[in-house]
């Protein structure tokens, strides 16, 4: 039980996929223009991560080591397709906003990295705990980045259709923050802030 809790917590702060390992940067930069976009992207990635971790852990005994990467990719692509079709059916507006980044979850390195480093070596329950923890860590980081960008860029924060700050905050919105340059700058500063808080700087393993 303590092992499971440890696996779950690992992805939230100690090895946060986005802020610590710098994995999954493409969707993090692209869809973090508004907090709801970031939230739903996080949910989608969490689902694919947990599902593929579980399935890969269950079949880890039968996959030959030499062809394991193609096998992982097929499993991940299947779950990415499930998310793509489900979002298209139930959240068509969000599906349109997230665009090609929903099917592109398949090449999100967090998922392949966890399959290779964790799920293919550990029992199913631990793999699920790891998937949920990593997914939650990714979602929290994405929500943090996207709320900062939305507040600075629009002087408001719209959560589930409701503006949190009513008529808006009393400053002129800096539109550049909801445009591509803002993504790079906010993401960089958040990583720097986390480095400063925990007095630890890591070298990058940057990938999609």
């Amino acid at each position: 039980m303590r092992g499971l809790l440890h696996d779950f917590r690992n992805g939230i702060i100690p090895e946060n996929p986005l802020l610590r390992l710098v994995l999954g940067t493409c969707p993090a930069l692209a869809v973090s223009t508004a907090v709801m976009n970031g939230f739903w992207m996080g949910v989608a990635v969490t689902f694919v991560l947990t599902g593929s971790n579980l399935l890969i852990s269950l079949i880890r005994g039968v996959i030959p080591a030499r062809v394991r990467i193609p096998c992982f990719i097929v499993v991940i692509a299947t779950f990415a397709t499930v998310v793509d079709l489900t979002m298209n059916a139930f959240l068509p507006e969000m599906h349109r906003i997230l665009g090609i980044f929903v099917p592109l979850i398949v090449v999100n390195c967090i998922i392949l990295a966890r399959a290779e480093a964790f799920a293919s070596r550990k029992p199913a329950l631990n793999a699920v705990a790891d998937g949920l923890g990593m997914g939650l860590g990714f979602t929290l980081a994405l929500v943090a980045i996207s709320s900062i960008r939305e507040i600075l860029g629009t002087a408001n924060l719209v959560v589930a259709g409701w503006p949190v700050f009513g008529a808006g905050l009393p400053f002129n919105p800096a539109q550049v923050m909801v445009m591509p340059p803002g993504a790079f700058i906010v993401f960089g500063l958040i990583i720097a802030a986390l480095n400063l808080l925990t007095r630890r700087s890591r070298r990058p393993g940057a990938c999609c």
Partner: protein
Amino acid sequence: MGLNLVAIVISAILVNNFVLMRFLGICPFLGISRRLSTAVGMGVAVIFVMTLASAITWVFQHTLLTPLGLDYLQTVVYILVIASLVQFVEMVIQKTSPALYQALGIYLPIITTNCAILGVAFINVREHYSFLESVVNGFAGGVGFTLAIVLFAGVRERLDVAETPAALQGVPIALISAGLMSVAFFGFQNLFHFLLS
């Protein structure tokens, strides 16, 4: 027709640059931009694979998936096609041109999970591009990627010798520099208005 192709080229390289505006291929952009020579190698490999992948995914889409009504298999088919393509290209280059393999070989395996490659295939099908338009879009997208990564490698070579606060060293300062480059590319946003007026 010709004007359309020119528009696609300008859009993919400058106005909607794959890396700085569309956020595709951030992985190698941050990971392999430490030195100018490796950045050039990676860029050429990406141009090559992106052009081929655009062509081959178009063929799969329009001869297999659409006629058979299997559109929901798009993601699975595309990633498998791209992974096999990269593997195949690697083997062919290794056999036929050892010199080229020396130059590009190490970059090819990482290209499979580069979202710019899969991304361009999705963009081609969503924009309903013809075969020629798809190939041109793939090639120009690769050129845009190369332009961004080569410029960025130049910036990073200078950053290495600059004094940066400890917390900003590595990824954070690289991201902030990329943000400034992205601001510079905003200058191209109105290029179409300018050219058409």
